[in-house]
């Protein structure tokens, strides 16, 4: 494991009006690892993600990409760095097929400026094959015919296709059944195996314990703890989420109480 995180956020503060949502949050992701970002509703998970995405400007703090400070002022800056966010609503067009969705807005063109379907189809297949996806029957299936898991797979494959370095997944298994959840978690694991930095935002502790290398727990806008999954139990993570501390891990008792 490289010692420099591929993406690091230091001392992020963010307020909406009088409400401070993030209190000097530190967050880092290593290439080849799955970092779970957990926390109760309102803990600031989405806000943090939207700061990385360039949707919200930060009040203070800095973002480092591969150790170098970067400025993210908009979604395009994030994409340019190779940071891709797969939102919960997936943003797929039901009336287009998998290939068309994966290349939407970035289509390959032939020399006469028409759509190069052959190249796109081949690249889509290579990407899916690279992720060992076996759940999709045909890359020419229209999204409206796909199951929830297949849609999630398509959205993740779309994020991988563009040579991204960091992929943030917002509740990828929330709407899925048991078997499909397993498939998507396998896929998440493979993203890390393929060398990407993966951020998994999830409410589901089973998913987190199964697939994450590290866990960052947010408690009311503060980082309660950043721990290795192997060094913590399911119950402890739940305690971190609900109380901000567990045993000697987490916020100081006074701080946790004061935040609440």
């Amino acid at each position: 494991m490289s010692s420099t995180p591929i993406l690091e956020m230091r001392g992020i503060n963010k307020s909406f009006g009088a409400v401070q949502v993030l209190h000097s949050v530190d967050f880092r992701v290593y290439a080849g690892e799955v970092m779970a970002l957990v926390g109760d509703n309102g803990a600031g998970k989405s806000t943090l993600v939207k700061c990385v995405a360039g949707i919200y400007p930060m009040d203070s703090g800095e973002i480092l990409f591969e150790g170098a400070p970067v400025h993210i002022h908009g979604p395009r800056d994030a994409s340019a760095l190779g940071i891709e966010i797969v939102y919960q609503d997936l943003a797929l067009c039901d009336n287009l097929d998998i290939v068309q969705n994966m290349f939407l807005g970035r289509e390959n063109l032939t020399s006469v400026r028409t759509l190069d379907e052959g190249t796109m189809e081949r690249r889509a297949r290579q990407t899916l094959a690279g992720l060992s996806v076996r759940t999709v029957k045909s890359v020419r299936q229209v999204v409206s015919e796909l199951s929830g898991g297949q849609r999630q797979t398509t959205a993740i494959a779309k994020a991988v296709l563009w040579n991204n370095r960091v992929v943030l997944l917002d509740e990828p298994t929330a709407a899925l059944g048991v078997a499909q959840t397993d498939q998507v978690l396998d896929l998440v694991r493979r993203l890390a195996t393929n060398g990407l930095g993966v951020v998994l935002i999830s409410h589901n502790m089973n998913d987190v314990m199964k697939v994450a290398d590290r866990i960052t727990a947010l408690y009311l806008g503060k980082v309660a703890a950043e721990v290795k999954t192997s060094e913590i139990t399911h119950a402890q993570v739940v305690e971190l989420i609900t109380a901000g501390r567990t045993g000697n891990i987490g916020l100081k008792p006074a701080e946790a109480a004061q935040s609440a």
Partner: protein
Amino acid sequence: MTEPTPTTPTPAPAPVLANTAAAAAPTEAGFSVDAGATNLKEAFLGYVTRIRGGEVGALPAVAGLVLLLVVFSTTTKIFLTRGNLANLPTQAAPTILIGMGLVFVLLLGEIDLSAGTAAGLASAGMAIAVNFHGNLQTQLKGGMFGAYIVVMVLALIVAARERLWPGVIAIVFGGVVLVTHIGSNQVLAILLAVTTGTSIGILTGFLRARVGIPSFVVTLALFLAWQGVLIQFLGAGNSFPTQRFKTINALENTNISPLWSWVVLIVFVGGYGAFTLYTSIRRRAQQLSAQPVSIVVGRFAILALLGAFSVFFLNKNRNPNKGHVIRGLPWVVLLILIVLVAMTLLLSKTTFGRHLYASGGNAEAARRAGIDVPRMRIAAFGISSSLAAIGGVVLASKQGGVPADAGGGNTLLFAVGAAVVGGTSLFGGRGRVRDAVLGGLVITIIPNGLQLHPNVGASYQYVITGGFLLVAAAVDALSRSRRPT
């Protein structure tokens, strides 16, 4: 699932994944990605699955067409005569052309109620130009000429700001025709009408997309407004004839010679067959998903048979009276074919078309993919009104002039009906240009056939046409609800 073609990895390099997935790439051999349906049975089963899943395509329109043909040819003697059948394409032409434009707007889930009167207004510009030696200024009194130019300039500004360059070129061209009085040339006058349509459409789109007025309200207001402008242009109850202008008149009233009719058939149907067959074979060779050759050949054979039969039929004299001979393919059929092919290619082979489908399917997803959805809306309205203007020109040709109520009445509603009956969804995202052609034929055959029944009143035409539209809309809505989401 049978999989005769092994999906071995293609030799093409994978630069995107070179650093991330190189290790995993060899697993592709075990990755059961299809190469499309490989035989007839699979293709048929796939088709059945799609229909059951709500992807009905052209099926209802074709079924309706066959049903109507059978009913009318068995219950009347005149329906199947040459004179009558040859009328169908010319009767359907304005509806089809306006409907083809509406497909673009419907694909975005929008509606354009003003397409009919905009078509009438655009054709009025043409009629005035040819009747007054290209000088619209003397005819359009009370600042109307100035308003005409202002509309074009505003549309030009919008088109330039939105970087819709084909629109910019069209409007500049139309503006030049307008101010330099060269519209006495009929072709230029027709182009003036089309570019007038472009201007109207771009302004409509601007009001919808940038100002944010719902398209129903914008186009309802413009539907009324253009009607009034048209009366101002022509004078109430007045009509400008176009009959004596050969090119304009030729569109709906003259035919291509029999020999050239065959050439048109061979170029279009042969070209279609060659293109689809080439695509299928090449894609299969490259191990991409492709339609089975048997399906492609079968579809081509059916089209070729229908086309050959129609041309053969139309090449026979259909004038029941002695005297001059009427035969050949009506010119307007060629016009429709050209627009059909051009617009189909635009929708299926370009990024513009892809982004239009995406914007109609999920505007938020399109926006996140970097597509300027409002710009797509403006472009769609621009194309819609341009095609509507062509429809208006054809309508003028058919009626022998432009009356003060041109494009009013049911013109627009029949055109919307044509697109919907043909299979274009009112909910956006689903539809093709050919839908308007199939639907337009259905919408036209109903009154054509019913008028041959002396004991069936005109009232039934409306009821039956309405019924067809209702069935088509129901199929659309039900097929939508059958989808997973």
